[in-house]
């Protein structure tokens, strides 16, 4: 626990600094409100439409594959940490784990899930 004290201090300082700066701005800055100031800035043009458009569903596959491989990395991380203790047994185990997932990678690749079209 003690090792985290510097981090806590750091977070405290950072947080305080942020809040102080923000409130200092509120107190110090001149306040002149205009309608144009609150409009959305779009290259100096008046905005044509909302900026939030529906994305293509392809992004979803990419995001989903990212999550799955991310979870895989979560298991690689502790394996790397404890590798000196578990040795060959752990190596074989991790190879099995990865082989099963490589089949999934192979599948995604062959089905064209990694391509944009």
């Amino acid at each position, binding site marked *: 626990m003690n090792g985290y004290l510097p981090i806590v201090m750091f977070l405290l300082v950072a947080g305080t600094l942020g809040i102080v700066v923000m409130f200092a701005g509120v107190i110090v800055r001149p306040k002149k409100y205009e309608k144009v100031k609150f409009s959305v800035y779009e290259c100096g043009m008046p905005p044509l439409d909302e900026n939030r458009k529906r994305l293509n569903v392809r992004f979803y596959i990419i995001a989903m594959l990212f999550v799955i491989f991310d979870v895989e990395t979560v298991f690689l991380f502790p394996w790397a940490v404890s590798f000196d203790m578990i040795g060959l047994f752990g190596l074989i185990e991790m190879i099995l784990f990865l082989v*099963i997932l490589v*089949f*999934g990678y*192979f*599948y995604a690749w*062959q*089905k064209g899930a990694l391509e944009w079209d």
Partner: protein
Amino acid sequence: MTPQAIMNLLSIYPEVIMTMFGLILVVLDVMTKNEKKSMVGYFGIAFLVITVLIAWPPVGKKFLGFGNMVMWDSYSFVFFFIFAIAYSLTTLGSVSYLKENGILKGEFYTIMFFSVVGMMFMVSAYDLTVFYAGMETMAISMYILAGFNKKCARSSEAGIKYFIIGAFSSGIFLYGLTFVYGATGSMNYLEIAAALKGGAASTTTFKFGLVLMLAGFAFKISAVPFHMWAPDVYQGAPTPSAGFMTVAPKAAAMGALIRFCWIALEPVGNMLALFFGILAVITMTYGNLVALAQNNVKRMLAYSAIAHAGFMLMGLVSMNPEGYQSVALYAIIYAFMNIGAFTLLGVVKNKGMIDDERLESFAGLSKTNPMYALGMLIFMFSLAGIPPLAGFIGKFQVIMATMKAELYWLAIIGGLNSALACYYYMRVTIYMYFKEPEYEVDATVSRSAFITSFIGAVMVILIGFFPTFFVNLVKTLLV
């Protein structure tokens, strides 16, 4: 190889073989052409047959490996056999349905195959971590199977509903698990039992955790009051996957629950009997009463699936070997009759403006398609538990086990419920045999649907007429 290593391998080899076959299926799916995707399913059946033959256990032998985590014995095998039946029947019957709906993809079979692996782990688990990992594998596969027809809004709705409720129930289950772990200090069934004998059973922590865990289980077997998802999901899902989903995951959850109660919760068995008794009564009665009011046969079968889950729970209440033998037998019979019924349901196409599965579609089918009507009649009679057919044997065995445990009130309620259930199953046959056709209905049974329903009907009749053989078979396997 030390004896320990051999034991480890023996305790897990069917699952290992199944996983390797599943990976081969993934490759096969990539390699086959689009119009030949049913090959993947047929290969899956072949692989299952091979695994069943390899994995046939010596009766009475128990292989417990990996630090008492996984068990391969005849109990696991019987449930594996049920999943294999469900997979094979569903695959055989699904081809034409999937083709007509434009969703004949190899993934359907691959995912179903991997769900079987998950279910095997569930049933053979001796440790809650293994159980939970297996359950999630099964559950994720089921979400995908429910939403497989992505062009159909109902199917997508079913998939999302199932996913949200499933994730929620998993969360409840895990939260309960943490409490049980906190109270007993272990996730291993044997160690939990030891801790309960040592006094952990009376702690509030344990009781609270157990209630949450059992609620999670109840979600999976769609026991009332945790059944809300079931009708919508079973109705919305593509018909073949609905057939599979009503049988295999339920059998798996039942098998795992029995093992968990029988081994880990053995010291608190008496406390549980009442809990499961009440759950069984509510589930049966509610499922049957609501099924009475349904005009859509698929939705009616969904509610009847809830009622059947309640009936299977009855076998759990008796807490004797007859109880779980009867549950296993019931699950086998239920696999044959329910997947058969769902397969036949999938071929009905109403050319009028109403849903294919409406009761009116079935009016007068005995005149336009007598073979179809006969098949449906057999399944409906069996589901209702009319004496010469298999459904009766299943119900009879469950009620006998309850009687043996001297739970007469439960046996009586069970009997009354099966009488109640007759009404809505009979309604389908009455529509088929005594009503005039209202709409133009096409119920041509395709070859693949014919094979499944034929096997189902033959097995239903065989088990019905020669019950002693099958009952003894299950009994010798589940000593």
